[in-house]
């Protein structure tokens, strides 16, 4: 089972890094790791969204250890992957639920369209499969059919969905949902929120309000605040994480859409800058398309192996 997971993730990543592999193939036909080869490697990393600064740092470290050596394709890829995996290893941490909490409250946030609602569906499926009892809260009371969308995920996964009438106050709804989930001793309360751009301060304050209201009931809530990032996002992801972290104390990241052609290299920059854990990655639109974030698999994916 676990192996199947890994190989599917690897499949997804491999497809997603086809372009980078092509770039790298042209690099690695050279025998000697010289300036030109390093420049090409650096460009390959930039083309996978690592950003100019991080790509330069990774290559500088790589240069120190290997410059001028005769080196094969496989060695270059392995070594570069290891270099990147070392950066990512500390942030590869699964989401740990606190079994003492009934429920463990999870607030799911992010900019528009990144995959928040879908990720909640995937988590519900996973935890329901483990015999836990997740409850979903339709906290996106703004977007058209957001409630209906989450309700379908509830049906698919057998998780109850708590929703209010259209345009209810999300904070009030979250408060009521927590009351009910506590009474029912649910294991996990997954709160969906409307997508919001980090530079809209009124919307960010709304999110803070949800947290404030939850804390009236359980001062330790929310126990996790997940920021969902889209792997196709470029350098702006850094600003997203910075602001969400500042405003709502994000505890971990989810990276979605890694089944596409985007490689999600921004995760390397995020690891260096914020060191927030990446709990899982999304590799499709279905309930079972959630995978653990594995530093080595991801890094090897980035360099095309």
């Amino acid at each position, binding site marked *: 089972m676990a192996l199947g997971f890994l190989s599917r993730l690897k499949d997804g990543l491999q*497809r*997603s890094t*086809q*372009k980078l592999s092509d770039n790298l193939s042209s690099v690695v036909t050279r025998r000697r790791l010289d300036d030109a080869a390093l420049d090409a490697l650096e*460009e390959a990393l*930039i*083309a*996978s*969204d690592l*950003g*100019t600064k991080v790509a330069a740092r990774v290559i500088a470290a790589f240069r120190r250890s290997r410059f001028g050596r005769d080196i094969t394709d496989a060695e270059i890829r392995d070594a570069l992957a290891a270099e990147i995996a070392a950066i990512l290893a500390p942030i590869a941490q699964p989401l740990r639920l606190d079994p003492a909490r009934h429920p463990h409250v999870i607030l799911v946030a992010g*900019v*528009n*369209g*990144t*995959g928040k609602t879908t990720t909640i*569906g995937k988590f519900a499926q996973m935890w329901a499969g483990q015999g836990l009892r997740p409850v979903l809260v339709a906290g996106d009371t*703004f*977007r*058209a*059919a*957001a409630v*209906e*969308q989450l*309700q*379908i*995920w509830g049906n*698919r996964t057998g998780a109850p969905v708590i929703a209010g009438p259209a345009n209810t106050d999300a904070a009030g709804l979250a408060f009521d949902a927590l009351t009910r989930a506590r009474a029912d001793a649910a294991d996990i309360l997954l709160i969906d929120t409307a*997508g919001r*751009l*980090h*530079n*809209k*301060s009124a919307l960010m304050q709304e999110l803070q309000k949800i947290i404030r209201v939850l804390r009236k009931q359980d001062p330790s809530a929310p126990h996790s605040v997940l920021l969902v990032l*889209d792997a*196709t*996002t*470029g*350098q*702006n*992801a*850094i*600003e997203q994480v910075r*602001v969400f972290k500042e405003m709502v104390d994000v505890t971990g990241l989810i990276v979605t*859409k890694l*089944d*596409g*052609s*985007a*490689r999600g*290299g*921004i995760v390397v920059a995020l690891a260096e800058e914020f060191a927030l854990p990446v709990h899982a990655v999304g590799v499709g*639109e279905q309930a079972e398309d959630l995978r653990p974030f594995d530093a080595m698999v991801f890094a090897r994916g980035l360099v095309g192996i």
Partner: protein
Amino acid sequence: MFDSLSDKLNSTFDRFRGRGTLDAEDVAEALREIRLALLDADVALPVVKDFIARVRERASGAEVMDSVTPGQQVIKIVNDSMVEALGGAGAVPLNLNAVAPVPILLVGLQGSGKTTTAGKLALRLAQKARKKVLLASLDTQRPAAQDQLAQLATRAGVPSLPIVAGQTPLEIARRALDVGRREVYDIVILDTAGRLSIDQALMDEVKSVRDATSPAETLLVVDAMTGQDAVNTARAFNEALGVSGIVLTRMDGDARGGAALSMRAITGAPIKFTGSGEKLDALEEFHPERVASRILGLGDVVGLVEKAAETLDQEEAEALAAKMARGKFDLEDYRKQLNQISKMGSLSSIVGMLPGMGQLKDQLGKANLDSSVLKRQVAIISSMTKTERAKPDILKASRKKRIAAGSGTSVQEVNKLLKNFDDISDMMKRMQKLGQKGLMRHGMSALMPGRFGGAKH
């Protein structure tokens, strides 16, 4: 996070001032900075390379004019090239030259904003162009997708195709055109499921829809925050479908939007609209000049003014402007302005929109200057008497001490506020001197004290 490109180029070129022409070495150094700035703005690498080559050609050997610094001159070349690469002046309208009902097909990656854009286009075509529009969702993949479009249609006040469960996208498309013909619609907007460009089955499916409907417009809807992957997406969708136009969504964010250039360069298709919000009226025609300076970090003055107009209290703003014009601007006005600024969002995001303010943004970022600082400044002014606010010159040590105590701050903070106020008054005076025309010509950077970089006089 990064200095604006204009700051960087100005400092790069400071050394070369006084020479007659830009030589190859100067240009090469500038081009390195431009390359980095473009990559930081998420322009895709192959597109950056082409762009740099074009700028090199234009900049090499260009004569340095007396009136501007070499840095400014290169910036102008870069900016002009960027505007050109984005499509040149003026917006490209939708092509509606086809037999009614004219089909418009929306395609793109998951979550890029297709369904919302479908609603926005419907509203626009119905209201501004007085067309009879039908909305139809071909999205049988995403949970509640058809429901979402139906709700948006209601909000836009246009009909949507009744939902029939179990139909394939192709069947829905055919039904939409049938209804469109029978009920004499002018336009039928077809929203499709999000799909990955590497998902062969789904790409084939949308191809069959295209073949069956021959849309007058096939619009690729793209998130302005997209990174390097823009190339893959643009190429794949264009090869499969022949993209006729691009819609860039989430321009209300603070991404630099380099994807715009990538998309345009790879598909050759014009960017027709930008989305700037979740509401249905948040759709604008594309303005290459604005997006060019945004990508280059030269600031988006127009965008800033619009944002201000959106959030500011109009009357208060006009009263302030009148006072500024008369050169009368006191601490009470400054307090009002601070209040207005805090309504507009984080200070650094606003400052980032101003040209030549990269360094200041950096300083602001480091000092963690946020709305809390604004609030403290407001508190300080609130602790002053009316006379003090009108005549800050009378503020000596003892008064400052009282104000600091009253506002729960320190005398240093009071001093800092007064210094800020001085800077701003200074700016007002420059503005007066420049007048409206000067402001247009030099941009906001003309107003900044020299140490902030920007235009030199």
